């Protein structure tokens, strides 16, 4: 009886906590993105709403909430409605095993990393459904690009994670950080994997220079061309939460998660996450979009062989030692 009460309370707290993190993160990251973009282009970014324009995203969110959701007449309505939800919910769930300190974690899973990877794949399913369901050629092109892309980055991504798992000897996200406490951060042992992982997560989160699914200058707005109002902002929310998740996993795998001197654990964790988020924005506002065939060539001919070689060398060295 006692146990069920505690677990129900824990579940409710988890839902509330994750909703809070997702919401505040989205508001802050959209603001940060616009500020970074502005300053990188000799502009100021939002300045009017709230101090430093911090409330601009809230105002935009309210505007999107009040807008009409338009359903295209030839759309496959159930799929059309389902797509943004399928994009958002898995990222939501994938935040459950992410530890923010040794004790601050929604639920400890011994296969946490596996769960995050598996749920991360569902994002592409959401994009595919969105492109397919709304019966628009640009949306379908964007969605099919996302599917072509997932094959190019997901295998190198996993091959970058495997050496870390070999080093830590566990799939649990918490244990991976604890393993780095005893030695150094894994970024120092695995610089190649760390670098490749950074490239792979910019592909994974569909961000420039690999934002083929969206590609404003080619495909109107890619897979979410037909979406308006709150359903559009769900895609936005999913994208920024996905960036948060990918950055959290990157900091856990390579930069020692909550580990750091003086400051408390969660603060270190957030600092590292926002370091990665800033890096991804920096990439976006520096590099132009590559061509689709260039991206596939890059994924299959450069990322895959190097990460495979890196994995095999790591495994060989581990076996010898």
């Amino acid at each position, binding site marked *: 009886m006692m146990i069920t009460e505690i677990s129900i309370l824990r579940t409710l707290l988890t839902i509330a906590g994750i909703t809070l993190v997702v919401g505040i993160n989205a508001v802050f990251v959209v603001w940060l993105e616009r500020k970074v973009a502005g300053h990188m282009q*000799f502009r100021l970014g939002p300045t009017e709403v709230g101090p430093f324009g911090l409330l601009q995203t809230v105002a935009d969110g309210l505007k999107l909430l009040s807008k009409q959701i338009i359903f295209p007449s030839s759309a496959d309505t159930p799929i059309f409605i389902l797509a943004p939800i399928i994009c958002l919910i898995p990222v939501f769930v994938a935040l459950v095993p992410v530890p923010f300190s040794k004790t601050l974690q929604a639920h400890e899973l011994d296969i946490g990393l596996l769960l995050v990877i598996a749920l991360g794949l569902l994002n592409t399913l959401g994009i595919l459904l969105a492109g397919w369901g709304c019966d628009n050629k640009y949306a379908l092109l964007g969605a099919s690009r996302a599917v072509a892309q997932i094959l190019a980055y997901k295998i190198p991504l996993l091959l970058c994670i495997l050496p870390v798992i070999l080093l830590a000897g566990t799939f649990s996200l918490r244990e991976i950080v604890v393993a780095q406490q005893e030695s150094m951060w894994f970024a120092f042992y695995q610089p190649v994997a760390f670098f490749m992982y950074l490239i792979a997560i910019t592909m994974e989160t569909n961000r420039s220079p690999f934002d083929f699914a969206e590609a404003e200058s080619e495909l109107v707005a890619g897979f979410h061309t037909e979406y308006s109002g709150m359903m559009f902002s769900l895609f936005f929310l999913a994208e920024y939460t996905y960036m948060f998740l990918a950055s959290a996993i990157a900091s856990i795998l390579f930069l020692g998660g909550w580990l750091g001197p003086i400051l408390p654990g969660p603060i270190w964790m957030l600092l590292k996450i926002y370091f990665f988020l800033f890096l991804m924005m920096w990439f976006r506002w520096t590099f132009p979009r590559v061509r689709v065939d260039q991206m596939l060539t890059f994924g299959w001919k450069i990322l895959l062989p190097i990460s495979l070689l890196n994995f095999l060398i790591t495994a060989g060295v581990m076996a010898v030692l």
Partner: protein
Amino acid sequence: MNWSYAQNIITGLVSLVKGMQVTMTTMLTPSPTVEWPSETAPLPPRFRGHIMLVADESTGFARCIACGACSRACPSNCIQVIGEKPEGVKKKSPTLFQLDFTKCSLCGLCVESCPVAALAYSRDYALAGPDRQVYSSMDLLTGFASPLTEQCHEL
């Protein structure tokens, strides 16, 4: 292993780092944006706004003697001056000085032709009005006391 393959990757990486350097230095240099209307950019000293009348420092009246030289000099015919001679004074005084700023080309011939230097360029550059009338018939005497009435012209 093919040497050009590795070389390609290395030169590519260097170019990426250079690109990121450019955006980072841009981000750290302060933006030249002037946030109008809460702040205004400094106007150059010879800025030409619409013309305005200059006040006589001793009396506070407009210096204008209503000779009409500006009106005749104007190539676009946008200045209209009517004057009267008050009792016991040598000079004429303007009773109407109207500028049609929608026609004005800011050539400055009126300012140059004025014999008593009664015209100058204003520094008013934030031009906006609710209707055409505001700029098609600007009353330049607004705000000046006149020796004819000794009262301020009301807008």
